[in-house]
């Protein structure tokens, strides 16, 4: 199993060795510090095509920072990011999105004056000024995408301020889906939701996984909700990869249980 123990660090050759598939997304030695605080330390991990990888770790472990580094929201002090085997360090956020790497935010970032349908329009927007200017919106497709997360029909005309947290998360998701990502990074999709909303989002993602070939990286505090959605889990603690494995393996790990003590899993 352990990809990690084999090539922690910068061993570029082994990353493409014959018996492993080419990872869809790979981080090698990502390091970022804010002043004296090391938010991520030499983080290496990968997601295979079609796989769903869970990222767990206590508050402040550096999960969001990791996503920010992968999408270039922030620039790493050290380390590289590879998409389909190509180094994408030089690509800016929007170029990475165009290359198929998209993410949602832990705190939803809606456009306060746009309807749900218009959010999808921005997500679908091509990055050419003339294209934007001369070609109108594809009403039908926009509504179809809205429908796919349960925000279709009349609901597509609602504004963010009319939405509950669960629907704001959906809106965040659908805006990202509209960019047609091949790999989707989801930051805390379940945070702040009611039990019912968690079930709905979870079901939505499960169905989507069954029907689309999208690759996922899902950050979540809610281990129970995460379990059915992921093939493999990476645990991050104090900015470092602590362990990785299947969901069962990881939650059975005593170090992981200690890191989470009082905050999560054992209440199950």
């Amino acid at each position: 199993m352990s990809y990690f123990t084999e090539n922690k660090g910068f061993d570029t050759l082994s990353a493409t060795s014959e018996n492993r598939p080419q990872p869809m997304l790979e981080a090698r030695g990502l390091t970022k510090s804010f002043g004296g605080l090391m938010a991520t330390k030499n983080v290496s991990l990968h997601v295979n095509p079609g796989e769903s990888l869970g990222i767990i770790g206590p508050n402040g472990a550096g999960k969001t920072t990791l996503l920010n580094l992968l999408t270039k929201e922030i620039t790493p002090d050290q380390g590289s990011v590879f998409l389909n085997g190509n180094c994408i360090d030089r690509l800016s956020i929007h170029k990475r999105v165009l290359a198929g790497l998209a993410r949602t935010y832990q705190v939803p970032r809606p456009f306060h004056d746009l309807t749900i349908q218009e959010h999808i329009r921005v997500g679908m927007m091509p990055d050419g000024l003339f294209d934007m200017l001369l070609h109108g919106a594809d009403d039908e497709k926009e509504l179809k995408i809205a429908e796919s997360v349960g925000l279709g029909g009349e609901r597509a005309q609602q504004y963010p301020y009319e939405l509950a947290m669960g629907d704001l998360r959906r809106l965040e998701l659908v805006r990202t889906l509209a960019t047609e990502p091949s790999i989707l990074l989801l930051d805390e999709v379940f945070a702040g939701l009611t039990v019912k909303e968690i079930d709905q989002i979870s079901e939505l993602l499960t169905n989507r996984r069954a029907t689309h070939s999208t690759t996922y990286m899902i950050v979540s505090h809610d281990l129970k909700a995460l379990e059915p959605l992921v093939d493999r889990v990476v645990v991050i603690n104090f900015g470092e990869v602590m362990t990785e494995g299947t969901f069962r393996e990881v939650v059975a790990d005593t170090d992981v249980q200690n890191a989470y003590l009082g905050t999560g899993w054992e209440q199950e």
Partner: protein
Amino acid sequence: MFAKGTNKGFLGWMIFGIAMLALPLFASSATVRIFVFANYIAIFAISWDVLSGRTGYISFGHPFLIGIGGYTTALLTHHLDMPLYITIPAAVLVTMIAGTLFFLPALRIRGTYFALVTLAFMELMYGLVQVVAPDITGGTRGLTGLPSIVTGAVSNYYLSFGVMFTLGLAMWLLIRTRLGTALGSIGMNEEAVRACGLNTTKLKLFAFTLSAMIAGLGGAMYIHYLGSIAPRGLFDVSFLFTILVACLLGGAGTITGPIMGAFFLTLLLEFLRPYIPGSERYLIYGVATLVLYVLQPRGIHRLIQITVNWFVEGFMRRKST
């Protein structure tokens, strides 16, 4: 190509256009001159709205852009006797280039700082024009006796109205395309726009260049209408505030709102002139603005929308019973 509801809005533009075309038929030439002034304020307001109203990058430096346009054509006509059909396009071009060079670094900073940096440009220009080569720029006194494009109140009215109407309608149509939606979304959440795969720098630069073009054209035409240019009139906080207040009062980001705001402000000032001749008038308009803003933060534009909808709905209801 255009968003829903464009036809309905277009009807509004036509009614506005016809009313404005007919105005000189029954208004005195003094009134017509007030409207010329309103047209120019409206052009400046449109320019501000394309950039700041849409993208949320609040510019305090529009007088700086207007000044570049004004000074370019003033210098070329005054010193080199060049014809207006060359100097005005040149002024537009210089404003776009010089403006972009100055604003480019500023477009990387957000919020209050952008506003302050642009304000600094205006102040800088005010200082520079007086100190650097005053024999060329006319220094504090400025330049007078500049040629006019057309003569007479009515001709100037039609000219300024034609330009204002064309620019206004074009920009209004622009914000109703997908490009307009993209520009507007920057003002709401720039990071999310990038996360949608859009190059926000390119979009901001486009909005800025367009805004500078309109400011340069408006500035150049305006000083030829006045026949003179002086730093005090242009790089002045009250001139800046007239533009800003027109936009906020009318409803920023809507193009039609700032035009309404420009007319409302200009007419209000003129209406108050006989009663309060001094600059205390500005106090009154400040208060009037504040009251309106508290009542409807989205401005006159929204007030009119609500009123029209109210009448239409009432009419429909009566018809259906």
